[in-house]
């Protein structure tokens, strides 16, 4: 699976891009990214949401990821 990152995210000095990995849930994605890029933890602390096939998930890391899904990490949004 290819996980795309918003160009607002900075991994090891590079902005945006994509990471190939095996993941069944959002939690798997987060664990893989922290494992490969320890600095990802700082991004997580600032807030990361996951778009799966266009639906945005901010909180539920148990969310399963369908095969061939478009997965995109974006900043976590709040509101007014």
């Amino acid at each position: 699976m290819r996980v795309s990152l918003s160009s607002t995210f900075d991994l090891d000095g590079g902005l945006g891009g994509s990471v190939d990995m095996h993941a069944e849930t959002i939690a798997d994605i987060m664990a893989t990214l922290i494992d490969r890029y320890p600095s990802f933890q700082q991004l997580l602390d600032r807030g990361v949401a996951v778009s799966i096939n266009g639906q945005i998930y901010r909180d539920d890391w148990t969310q399963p990821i369908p095969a061939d899904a478009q997965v995109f990490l974006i900043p976590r949004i709040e509101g007014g």
Partner: protein
Amino acid sequence: MGHEQKYVDKKYEVVGTRFNRPDGIDKVTGKARYGADASAPGQLVGRVLRSPHAHASIVKINTSKAEKLPGVKAIITSADLPDVTGGDQGLADILENCMARGRALYDGHAVAAVAAVDEQTAAQALKLIDVKYKKLPHVTDVDEAMCESAPVIHDRIITRGVEPKPTKPSNVAARTQMGHGDVEAGFAEADVVIEKSYKTEQTHQGYIEPHACLASVNPDGTAELWVTTQGHFVFRNVCASLLGLDIAKLKVTSSEIGGGFGGKTHVWVEPVALALSRKANRPVKLVMGRDEVFRATGPTSSTSIDVKMGAKKDGTITAAVAEMRYQGGAFPGNWAMLGCMTAFACYDIKNNQSIGWDVVVNRPKVAAYRAPSAPMAAFAVESTIDELAKEIGIAPIDMRLKNVAREGTLAPYGPTYGPIGIEHTLKAVKDHPHMRAKLKKNQGRGVACGFWFNIGGQTCTDLNISVDGTVNLTLGTVDVGGSRSSMAMIAAEELGIPYEQVRANIADTTSLGHNDMTEGSRGTFSSGMATIFAARDAISVLKQRAAKMWGITEEDVIWENGQALATGDSHSNLPPLSLKEIAAKSGRTGGPIAGHNEVVADGAGMGFASHICDVEVDPETGRSTIVRYTVVQDAGKAINPDYVEGQFQGGATQGIGWALNEEYIYGDDGCLQNAGFLDYRIPVCSDLPFIDTQILEVPNPLHPYGVRGVGETSIVPPLAAVGNAIANATGVRMTHAPMSPPRVLAGIDTLEHAS
């Protein structure tokens, strides 16, 4: 228990009808209890001393004279709020914003606070506190703050998102970039390119009720806080973290709320009131004055935005670039990033790029304001689209429809859209009678679109059925816009009982699990989902009890129209059991009947709106009067259409105020000059026509009823809709909001001199 979140098309009995809100009578008769309406035995009056300078070192604070004043029970400074945030810079910023730590960062920044036996003594004590300041250079303008020569407000800020990483601090907290395609190639394809720069001024949410609370801290570490807030659970967590209290020992009760619009998602005086109470060992009531609200609580960003867009002669937008500078007040925020994410979100633009700069200045800490950051970006983009349409010679509505985003469009912020409703709103606008209404002399019509994400979040709900069959629905999301009515309707719909049989209440923080703020248009989406699931939980219990009463198995019981039915050949002669009948026997069939749900309500559907504005401009004075205004918005599913329309109208009204009047005005000394409703003018009823509304319902696939949030999107289009209307009335393209009479008049004069 797991519940199915996906949308199911069904016919409703209660949902979609109109009921009065349960809190309405109390509010119109003055019985409702707001933030300032609580009292406790022995309570003191809290008051805050604020910096008169835009930026200053606090050399010394001498409180000795004030302490000797009879009736003064406690005085606090930052020394009484030690930093226990454990390296969490976000929390540390909140703490510093509540009480200055060595430096006053803006006019109105709190530097000390007093608790005294009465208002007069507290006011006198503030005058006796001697603060020695050393004035520092200040900057309040976002563009000036980015200059090399600007005074640097925080030595710790090194710009994020820039390569190579800067080595020196500056006022630029972060650079954001997003988009896709090749914008240079896109502009090369264009027949027409328009490039413009825009500015928007800082505005306040303008809630009528000021921030107010009653705090009481006990020596044993327990504490209570009564407060006007959009989220008492989050206030509890933040206040406990700032004061070193155990979260569960701080009980927070949300009062009725006299408006929030994002401004009551942040703590301002609440930690101060708790600290005063802790020191005085008595309850402390702290109510902000209006000037304090303006000077020291959450306005939105002022901005400076450059937009360049190119299109073919057929109206296809080939490229779009925006560079946006947002100030976040004295502390870093992510406001420009939100502008980047929303700027081009209504459109399918093959090549687009947004660059955002988040900047700090010597102004109060910016807070969310209804679809934060989106209105300013929409002002710039939607104005530029009208200019493109004019240059090409295509109707603005057709230009928008030609480029509209649909399901499958790649969003500018990255992902691909699911089912969205922007095209539906534009088509509805095109067909709306408003578009055919005749315009008189000096009148013009403008159309503009807007987008906001909407969010879900953590939610926890209880539903308890009384022995007479009436229902208590216990919610943890603060009701800011009539949600108690909507939640009661949802519970009634699920249970199959009349609306009047349900009473919805907002519980305090000791009575439910955590609930996120009522923000991000999440209240009806997320609490609605939790209410549906809690009601379904209760129905499963009702079926169990009915089975017991009949002496049959639960599998042979179904729930329909508010009653249990026995199914199968052997039971079909059993008469139905109503909810009331089952509830009446609950004591003998297993005890109270209740449902409960805790959910992370992810999957909030996005909000899209298109607005039509007719304006009349007085060419002698530059004054603009709104003649007609129509909001068309996708609600997914309107639970109570009255309150959906209310949200549409409220957001549009606030956006119109932003477009025409509202503006923070700073003097050369960096101090706010118009901290009151006389000089900072929000629209009143007599300023506006009836705001017409049209609700569209494109179901959100991830809500059982298809609900989307509706609270914020309606503030996004008005700035541009008004600006486009003024342009069509006068021929002047306004690029600076608010489009106040002097600015419009200057534009008319410039146009006349040019011609």
